[in-house]
């Protein structure tokens, strides 16, 4: 009897050890998630990516300098799973526009609203002077390294400001003033003192680092070596900031965030051999969606070898387009007007739901909850493409959407 128990005990133990691996949850397929590194990184680069990943998920507390006013407590709270954001974390920028005079109300708490605050400190409210508002939902941040590694020349190649080719589409560059810490690289082509913006919904940021430093401060209330001026609520009184020593994060923290985003892989496509998807792609090109959502680019030489001379498929031209009245938020940024938006890359759209709580929230402020909805908001330069989409048969529309879902 004793022996039987002992033997069955041992047998059970062996079985569980063997079954072990099988009874642990499997890894989601690479193509199902917006995480992972670009191919070809060295082990050291993989490690640095991991350090940045941790920085990206870091939750800031008041003791570490959060706020005192802020929108969210970490990057990953808005960019959940590196994917698109959720309406609950939409941020608001505001300004006073009077004819051609734009005042970002910097002395009144502009340009961005921080509706959250640390315990016992009042949150900001939009000052009465503001008369234009821009609501923004976080974009997915995959594949940014490829976009950052593009030469200005390859973006300029698609510019058609005066619509010389008469296709109704005139992509424009947003030339912006560089930040104090911007160091021009060989890819950059200045226009006087200004540089080409390629990040942000209105292409108002030249580099990933510009966006990171801005996000740390305006979204989380964190000062860094690149911006030592902490936020505070002017409505609560001058210099009523937190008492945490600035900078609240070091330059190396900023660099690891930048490195993380430069080395996040581009979303992997799914179902590319599905006939409907292939038909959808043809329709997408036929009706001219690709006039703006351009499929293919090649990177320039990069200091990260794995990003050099790489072909990638963002479905964007990184240029500003006038999208018509429905999408006009009257909020100018750099050279971009209220109705102008940078063509967003469409890659990763098929996985958007997985970071948006199972629903879709598309366009700059998340107003569209279906692909058809997003297309129906296309006006201005894109109006003819919207009309072309509407004339497709129901089946063709579904094929085109299947294609978008495969991205």
């Amino acid at each position, binding site marked *: 009897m004793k022996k039987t128990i002992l033997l069955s005990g041992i047998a059970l133990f062996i079985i569980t050890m063997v079954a*072990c691996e099988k009874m642990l949850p499997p890894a989601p397929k690479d193509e199902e998630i917006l995480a992972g590194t670009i191919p070809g990184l060295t082990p050291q680069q993989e490690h640095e990516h991991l350090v940045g990943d941790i920085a990206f998920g870091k*939750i800031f507390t008041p003791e570490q300098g959060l706020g005192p006013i802020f929108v969210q407590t970490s990057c990953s*709270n808005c960019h959940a799973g590196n994917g698109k954001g959720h309406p609950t974390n939409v941020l608001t920028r505001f300004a006073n526009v009077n004819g051609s005079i734009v005042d970002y109300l910097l002395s009144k708490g502009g340009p961005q609203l921080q509706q959250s*605050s640390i315990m016992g400190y009042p949150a900001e409210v939009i000052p009465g002077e503001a008369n234009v508002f821009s609501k923004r939902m976080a974009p997915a941040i995959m594949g940014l390294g490829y976009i950052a590694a593009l030469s200005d020349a390859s973006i300029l190649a698609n510019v058609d400001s005066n619509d010389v080719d008469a296709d109704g589409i005139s992509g424009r560059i947003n030339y912006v003033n560089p930040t104090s810490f911007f160091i021009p690289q060989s890819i950059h082509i200045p226009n006087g003192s200004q540089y080409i913006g390629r990040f942000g919904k209105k292409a108002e940021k030249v580099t990933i680092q510009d966006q990171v430093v801005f996000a740390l401060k305006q979204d989380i209330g964190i000062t860094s070596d690149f911006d030592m001026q902490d936020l505070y609520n002017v409505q609560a009184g001058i210099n009523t900031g937190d008492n945490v020593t600035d900078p609240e994060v070091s330059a190396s923290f900023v660099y690891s965030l930048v490195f993380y985003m430069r080395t996040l892989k581009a979303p992997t496509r799914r179902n590319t051999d599905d006939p409907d998807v292939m038909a959808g792609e043809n329709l997408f090109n036929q009706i001219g969606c690709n006039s703006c959502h351009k499929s293919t680019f090649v990177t320039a030489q990069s200091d990260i070898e794995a990003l050099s001379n790489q072909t990638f498929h963002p479905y964007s031209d990184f240029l500003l387009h006038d999208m018509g009245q429905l999408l006009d938020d009257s909020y100018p940024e750099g050279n971009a007007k209220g109705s102008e938006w940078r063509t967003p890359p469409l890659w990763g759209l098929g996985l958007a739901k997985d970071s948006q709580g199972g629903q879709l929230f598309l366009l700059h402020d998340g107003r569209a909850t279906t692909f058809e909805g997003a297309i129906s908001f296309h006006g201005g330069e894109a109006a003819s493409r919207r009309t072309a989409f509407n004339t497709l048969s129901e089946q063709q529309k579904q094929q085109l959407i299947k294609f978008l879902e495969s991205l």
Partner: protein
Amino acid sequence: MKQTFLFLLTSVLSIQAFSQSDSSFFKRIPTDTSKLKMNMDAVYNRPFLQMGKLPVSIGGYLEANSSYFGTDGVSEGLSFQIPRMTIFLSSTIKKRIKFLSEIELEEGGKEIGIEFASMDIELHPLFNLRGGVLMNPIGAFNQNHDGPKWEFISRPISATTIIPSTWSNVGFGVFGKYGRNNLVWAYEAYLTNGFDDKIIANEENRTWLPESKKNPERFEESFNGIPLITAKTAIRHRKIGEVGISWMGGVYNKFEEDGIVIDSKKRVDAFAIDFNTTIPKINTYLNAEWVWAMVDVPDSSPPQFGNKQQGGFLDIVQPIVRRKMFGWENSTINLAFRTEYTDYNVGTFKETGENRYDHIIAIVPGISFRPSAQTVIRANYRYHWQKDLLGNPPSLTAGFQFGFSTYF
């Protein structure tokens, strides 16, 4: 401090080792099984050893286990832990005056904490005074958490992260009991120090009551001068089982500094219902607890800080073999199953009307072998679905745990 303590501890343990050859020095105090024991009695209802003629009895328990877990395809490999070792010292100072302390070494001695150190004075069975460091009687697990009593290696999630077990504080209060035939009724009510504003200023990214445990100053002074009130009442019927309801409430923020009002008072309240019973004949043991926490979260906090949390667990333990095994009389083999649920953010998003998720669902089947009631060798498999605030596809964690826990 830690060194001294460890030294004392090893000396005590070596005495005990020595005691095994000289059993006349240490006498095991028989546990009184005639009376109906309730969760509130757990602190005294433990095996104690009397050392010679010393007026102090000693006890304690150790937990050790190994685990192999993986989350979404990434495994941390095999690891070994001593999650805790606890020493109790108790003495009857005079008739009806008792002292008991429980000192816990967590994670291999990294942290040493006084879980419990209080004096009880019985004026009447219905009216006892208790003062010192005490375990707030919220739910059942907080007071009745000794490892060897459980067939599960991990502690229940709701009882450790909504109710921050083991949650003990400095304070005082009263308790009492009234029994008749098959029924006992009991109550407890205490005033203690309590929570602080770390419950919404933490790196957990959610309302997190356990964060206040990290503040050692709560043993020195109250964060805001307002005591935390904890009250519990429970009733036990010999055949039907025990039901308890409890409440704990106070203010967690600093609303005044040097006499200047700096904020409105923000409350934290927790409620719990606990139940346990043993089904006659088949001897199935059922143990359940459900807890709620309500927190006045400032309006200016981001949405991940929920103002309502809830969760609970149900344990089913079924003895399947009870007889002499390997020479131990009355050994038992039990099958055990736990289901648990913890929702850190009850409510909906004002922007979409959709549910705020941030919840965990877990199931834990297990098997245990008890050579005696004081010792358990147990193996668990855990599977655990965790959804983020937005309700994105859950992250899956599963793993095996194997270990023992024993009183000594």
